[in-house]
């Protein structure tokens, strides 16, 4: 039982990070049909910036703020310099552009920072709590609470503000959105800002547990993508559920089967979803009534 709880908790913690990345995918996908493969790099840039700013003597809260600002700036630049000029190109072209941008960001991080693994000090110390025999890091609880806050804030933004509703409307029917006067390029821009913001906070929450280095984004993006597929591409609830589920599958797979196959589980999930239920758990089957 203690073992089960231990796996469950570590699965939920990692799953929360996957959920945040999947949410980033979902927001940009809904606004533009683009799957932004630089989403994992947002997490990396944020973690690395915070680590190096803290090492340079900047107090941790300020370093975290700086990391968020830098990451959001990357999101804005990615939209302005890479996505906006290619407006009207097919989503596949834009997706390839985001892969290019992710390689560039990885390269910049390797040059500006370094290629080593780094960590941030956990917010609430590193004495594990004992819960039913399982040892739980306080940072795990902070990750879960932080994710909960982000998901709630995002829900309120989407459902309680006109801007958020304009984003939902753009996702639901892009032609109608343009005809009622929603500036759909601005909506895409905002989706990049919000996704970068979510990625940045995810990076700050995760780095004390998962560590960070310049190349961590690729695998994170793939895991987040698997989570978004599992939940149903385009569904925010699906992204969260898919992320947590993928985290749990990985933790139980690594715990009860073999830890060597941990990273393979995300890819098995992608294949299984594509074969068995391409619309995912919460996605709409794309049937159009004519």
């Amino acid at each position: 039982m203690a073992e089960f709880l231990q796996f469950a908790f570590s699965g939920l913690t990692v799953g929360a990070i996957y959920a945040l990345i999947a949410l980033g995918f979902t927001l940009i996908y809904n606004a533009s049909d683009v799957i932004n493969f630089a989403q994992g790099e947002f997490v990396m840039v944020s973690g690395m910036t915070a680590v190096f700013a803290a090492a340079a003597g900047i107090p941790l809260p300020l370093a975290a703020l700086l990391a968020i600002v830098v990451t959001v700036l990357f999101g804005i630049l990615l939209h302005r310099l890479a996505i906006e000029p290619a407006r009207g190109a097919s989503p596949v072209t834009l997706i390839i552009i985001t892969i290019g941008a992710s390689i560039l960001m990885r390269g910049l991080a390797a040059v500006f920072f370094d290629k080593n693994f780094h960590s941030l000090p956990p917010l609430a110390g590193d004495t594990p709590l004992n819960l039913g025999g399982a040892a739980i890091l306080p940072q795990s609880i902070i990750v879960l609470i932080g994710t909960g806050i982000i998901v709630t804030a995002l829900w309120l933004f989407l459902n309680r503000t006109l801007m958020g509703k304009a984003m939902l409307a753009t996702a639901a029917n892009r032609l109608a959105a343009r005809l009622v006067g929603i500036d759909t390029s601005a909506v895409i821009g905002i989706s990049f800002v919000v996704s970068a913001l979510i990625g940045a906070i995810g990076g700050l929450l995760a780095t004390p547990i998962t560590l960070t280095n310049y190349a961590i984004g690729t695998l994170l993006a793939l895991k987040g993508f698997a989570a978004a597929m599992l939940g149903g591409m385009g569904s925010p609830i699906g992204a969260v559920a898919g992320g947590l589920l993928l985290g749990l599958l990985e933790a139980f797979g690594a715990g009860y089967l073999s830890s060597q196959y941990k990273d393979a589980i995300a890819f098995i999930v992608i294949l299984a979803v594509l074969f068995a239920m391409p619309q995912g758990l919460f996605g709409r089957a794309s049937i159009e009534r004519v």
Partner: protein
Amino acid sequence: MLSVENLTSRYGRIEVLHGVSFNVAEGEIVTLVGSNGAGKTTLLRAISGVQPTTGGTISFSGESIGGLKAHKRVARGMAQVPEGRQVFAPLTVDDNLRLGAVTRRDDGIATDLENIYTTFPVLAEKRHLQAGALSGGQQQMLAIGRALMAKPKLVLLDEPSMGLAPILVEQIFAIIADFKKRGLTVLLVEQNAYAALAIADRGYVIETGRITISGTGRALLEDPRVRAAYLGL
């Protein structure tokens, strides 16, 4: 109010509008009739700024708007009720209407919303339901209400009667005829030529991307070519 000169537009390499010219004066109901594929929807989308044009000019209230993005044109006072209604299906009726006013910054939005609910009581009953759950006729009313929420001077309607039961078609055309009394200018695109010409001040016939016949609504109803081709008489 609206003047279109020599407008051309293409899908890829295929030109679908070959130099369309027409105008709509303030307070008029003008209708464009034509068969499937004549370019009616393309023309309305080009006017609204969601279909790129390759030549010609569009001016609205005396100013050229050809280079403006779609949302800027809505802000200038032009709203479209698109073909096939295109409501925001997962959003509530209320949110659909509020998004119709997304370009407005004045404080009359709440009053206008109540006016829409008075005009369309069925929408008031279902204001908290998802728009996708409405029937076709109710969705059409929602699409019209959403366009009115932009407080437009000119309303563009694309096939508002498509796919509706005859009694609803009658209701929709009565609503459009009523726009005139509210001081709205209307450009109506229809395959239902008889009903459209009956309420229109003037009309144009569009055939394969060109205007071929124009005249008052009454004159077109009596024109032998129109009667043969579009009225089945």
